[in-house]
């Protein structure tokens, strides 16, 4: 049902490639950082040209993260449209599909950095992301993943901020996305539902039968009959 692909190169190249691949959703994962160890809220950057789907998806994700980790959301109910002062806008605004730049936790906050480093924290972050994707893109499709800072052609050594206590933002964002990709890839395709013909009176089911997927149903008003021609 879902496929995932990691995009590398500079941010514009990643978005253009995801467009060419006709991805249905684009996710770039970062962590936030502050000079204050206490800062710790969830926020998502959406493009200045973000669709209602992007905005709703971003808000849902931020709220779910805040609920999961007992924090708050920042920005406009969890999203920064166009980023802060334009920062981050270029990371997502060139996509032709809904796109988010995630900043779920602060790597500068020692408690949150511990969560980011832990296997259970990474799994929880991945679960929230996967649930958001399933909720907003239930039909499946290609999900484009981009690891913030890492694999940029123009700055190959960039790893983003250092986490309090050790590690880098980018390496841990990559772990979360890898987990999310595994969860999405492993999701069993739904059982095909047989096509059924039902006769209802209000909410009451009077008659039900299975018909072929390609059967053509024709109503004859002369004969007062619904039939399948030979």
């Amino acid at each position, binding site marked *: 049902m879902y496929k995932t692909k990691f995009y590398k190169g500079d941010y514009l190249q990643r978005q253009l490639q995801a467009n060419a691949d006709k991805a249905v959703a684009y996710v770039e994962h970062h962590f*936030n950082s*502050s000079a204050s160890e206490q800062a710790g809220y969830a926020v998502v950057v959406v493009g200045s040209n973000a669709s209602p789907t992007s905005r709703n998806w971003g808000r849902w994700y931020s709220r779910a993260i805040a609920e999961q980790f007992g924090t708050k959301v920042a920005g406009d109910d969890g999203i920064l449209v166009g980023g*802060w002062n334009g920062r981050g806008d270029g990371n997502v605004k060139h996509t032709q599909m809904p796109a988010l730049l995630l900043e779920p936790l602060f790597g*500068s906050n020692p408690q949150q950095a511990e969560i980011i480093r832990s296997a259970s924290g990474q799994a929880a972050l991945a679960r929230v992301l996967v649930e958001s994707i399933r909720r907003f893109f239930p039909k499946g499709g290609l999900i484009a993943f981009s690891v913030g800072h890492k694999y940029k052609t123009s700055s190959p050594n960039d790893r*983003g*901020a250092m986490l309090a206590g050790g590690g880098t933002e980018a390496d841990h964002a990559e772990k979360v996305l890898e987990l999310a990709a595994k969860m999405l890839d492993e999701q069993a395709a739904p059982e095909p539902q047989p096509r059924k013909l039902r006769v209802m009176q209000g909410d009451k089911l009077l008659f039900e039968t299975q018909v072929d997927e390609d059967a053509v149903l024709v109503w004859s008003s002369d004969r007062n009959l619904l039939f399948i021609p030979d």
Partner: protein
Amino acid sequence: MKRWTLALWLCLAGAWPAHAQSDTTHLLVFFSNARLAADPADCTAVTALDRHVPRTGAVATAALQQLFAGPTAAEQAMGYRSPFSAATAGLLKSLRVRDGTAYVDLHDPRAQLAGVSSSCGAAEFQSQVHRTLRQFASIQRVVFAIEGQPRTFYDWMNESCGPANGHCDARPFAASPKPQGGRP
């Protein structure tokens, strides 16, 4: 009574350096302080602190140098925070003010200030620099570069090149071989 009055006068006089006005320049630097901010989650909120430096006409340069040295230990104990610290004290490569725009050229800060490319980190960085420079009436806008290259700075900050940053034009930075300062 006269002796007490004289003693009090001498004490007060001793508390105020006789040459304070002539030998030093008073500046403000702006740091974050969540304890004083109306919204502790507002990464753009900054609070002013006083700095007195040896008398200079290059006040904007002096203010940035003070800012880039970060808050003192005593100020940190009072809740002041900044991406800047003693490790970034030499961050300023040059500053040129022209037509209301401050062109701030930095020595490559990306290793020391990796966190400022996040949304909150960027807000802290830019708010502190902007407010510190905009205390001077001659400065309305700030454009940054790393080693003379604005595109390097704005790529690092994940910001597009556009009218707000002079379309990442490097020419204004090339003409500033040594630090200068705006004169408010």
